């Protein structure tokens, strides 16, 4: 049951109605039943076994850590005045050490399952991969639906409990809902227990505003996904097809431009549908996108793109690596030997490589994803290391960094760097990707647009369809500019007159209905990020 299927809309409608009809204390149970039903229909019984195993393992591991902490606390309190402050601190430290060991072990188990299943899947797709033969044991294991998402949510939860950030959830049903909540299970966003887990455990009163805004967000998500992304997919499938290699640089740039908007429409559209569905139930899922096309640097892009993964990586990988004893020790050595700047640079340059290597293999253990991860890390580390040099250069050239032209330059520069990143991943192979990147900058020929033979319309989309896409992307752009300037679209719409408000919503609805790529005989494309 894909998000863009009619079935899903009927399912969501039924869940929303039932959610506000059942007594509020049972809302969590209804959502759990709905989530498992949704999961079963998308992943089957086998998938369900995996998510159940992870849920139970994580639930009991967290309770174990919690019980150690509680017992120790109780013991210290029972000793009352008999115990000195120092002794109490030592006892706490000893318990924290034990908890830390459990935390590391349980995180590794979860991570191990994720890596193992992903590797098996890779080996199944490409038998030469790591030399694993299809007859080897474990090769019949599958990748369950939403594996990365529920594993990352579980790992985040275990780390938080280990750190004593909040108390472990004792209610197994409510915890199971956190790992399986249907809007976020297929392609995120990644959720924190302290935020979404708590919201899911809390009863919610009916709110017309939530219902309306949720539905509007879903409609917007449909527009991005089935009007823009699924249509652009036709062009990218042609230009990035392994059988055609004679496109010139401009055609490749046209293809990567299409792919950039396709992947944005696909992923952010899917997130809008997920967030909209959750909002209809009174649950606020975290933001995943903040107009990434307006990013002025690669660092800024990663703060705006797949934000929930970025936040997860920052909290559970970046900071722990940066503040770990080995890194701080090396940093100190550098500082003593070569001064404060060098000391600061060591972790700042090293950490992005760790984070982006992980992001790379999270997408897939392939040369293309890993190269792309390292490419991003190189740009971000380079930006940090050369920051002072760039600053001096800007001062020397007397560039007004507050001007529109400078901001535009930054946005276009970031976009170009991103195009390279997209080609590395989307090209039929890594070598082919490098060839395409090279061609993009060397063989510029706009004949496919200006020529009489209208080659541009031979990639699968007619002139009308391309014009339609252009208008739709412009709509995205205008909405993006408004949001960049602090305008809250849905709240703003609420303040408009009835006719204008409904006129606009019906127009969007009609656009989805008329221009959406769907219908009998047509299977809406799977979400790109559903595969991770």
């Amino acid at each position, binding site marked *: 049951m894909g998000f863009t299927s009619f079935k899903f809309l009927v399912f969501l409608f039924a869940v929303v109605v039932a959610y506000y009809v059942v007594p509020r204390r049972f809302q969590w149970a209804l959502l759990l039943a709905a989530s498992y039903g949704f999961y079963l229909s998308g992943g089957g019984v086998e998938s369900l076994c995996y998510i159940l195993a992870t849920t139970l393992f994580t639930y009991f591991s967290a309770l174990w850590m919690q019980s150690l902490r509680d017992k120790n606390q109780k013991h210290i309190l029972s000793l009352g005045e008999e115990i000195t402050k120092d002794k109490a601190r030592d006892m706490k430290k000893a318990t924290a050490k034990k908890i830390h060991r459990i935390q590391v072990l349980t995180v590794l188990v979860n991570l191990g399952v994720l890596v193992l299943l992903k590797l098996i899947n890779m080996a199944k797709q490409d038998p030469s991969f790591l030399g694993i033969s299809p007859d080897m044991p474990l090769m019949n294991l599958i990748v369950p639906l939403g594996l990365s998402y529920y594993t990352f949510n579980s790992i985040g939860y275990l780390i938080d409990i280990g*750190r004593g950030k909040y108390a472990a959830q004792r209610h197994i049903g409510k915890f199971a809902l956190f790992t399986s909540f249907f809007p976020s299970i297929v392609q995120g966003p990644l959720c924190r227990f302290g935020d979404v887990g708590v919201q899911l455990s809390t009863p919610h009163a009916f709110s017309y505003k939530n219902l309306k805004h949720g539905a509007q967000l879903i409609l917007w998500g449909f527009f991005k996904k089935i009007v823009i992304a699924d249509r652009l997919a036709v062009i990218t499938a042609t230009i990035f097809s392994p059988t055609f290699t004679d496109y010139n640089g401009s055609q490749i740039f046209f293809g990567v431009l299409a792919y950039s908007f396709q992947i944005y429409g696909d992923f952010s559209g899917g997130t809008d549908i997920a967030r909209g569905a959750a909002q209809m139930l009174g649950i606020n899922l975290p933001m995943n996108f903040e107009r990434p096309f307006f990013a002025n640097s690669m660092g800024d892009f990663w703060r705006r793109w797949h934000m929930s993964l970025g936040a997860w990586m920052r909290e559970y990988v*970046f900071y722990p690596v940066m503040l770990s004893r080995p890194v701080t020790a090396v940093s100190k050595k550098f500082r003593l030997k070569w001064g404060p700047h060098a000391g600061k640079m060591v972790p700042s340059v090293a950490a992005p490589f760790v984070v982006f290597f992980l992001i790379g293999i999270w997408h897939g253990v392939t040369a293309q994803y890993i190269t792309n991860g390292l490419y991003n890390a190189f740009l971000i580390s380079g930006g*940090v290391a050369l920051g002072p040099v760039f600053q001096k250069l800007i001062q020397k050239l007397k560039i007004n960094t507050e001007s529109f032209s400078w901001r535009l330059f930054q946005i276009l520069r970031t976009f170009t760097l991103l195009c390279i990143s997209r080609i590395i991943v989307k090209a039929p192979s890594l070598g082919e990707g490098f060839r395409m990147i090279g061609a993009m900058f060397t063989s510029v020929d706009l004949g496919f647009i200006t020529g009489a033979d209208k080659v541009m319309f031979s990639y699968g989309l007619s002139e009308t369809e391309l014009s339609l896409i252009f208008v739709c992307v412009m709509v995205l752009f205008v909405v993006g500019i408004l949001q960049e300037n602090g305008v809250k679209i849905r709240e703003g719409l609420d303040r408009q007159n009835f006719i204008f408000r409904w006129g606009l919503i019906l127009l969007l609805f009609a656009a989805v209905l008329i221009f959406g790529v769907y219908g009998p005989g047509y299977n809406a494309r799977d979400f790109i990020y559903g595969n991770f």
Partner: protein
Amino acid sequence: MEKLLEILKGVRSDIDFENETALVDNNVLDSFDIVSIVTELADAYDVTITAEDMEPENFNSAEAMLRLVERLMDEM
């Protein structure tokens, strides 16, 4: 507080640390700045700041950072 403000200015001289109260929430500081600040604070006050302390509320203002340092010194 004087000492802390001096350290903060050393990391980012362009920020009004005396009055900003949402340094992390409003993305005034990025994660690299925060790590630089943490390294400087750890050195200057001889405290160990770990990943567990990396909560936005501990770094949203100079005052919050001072509270964090004082708490860590107290726990030593």
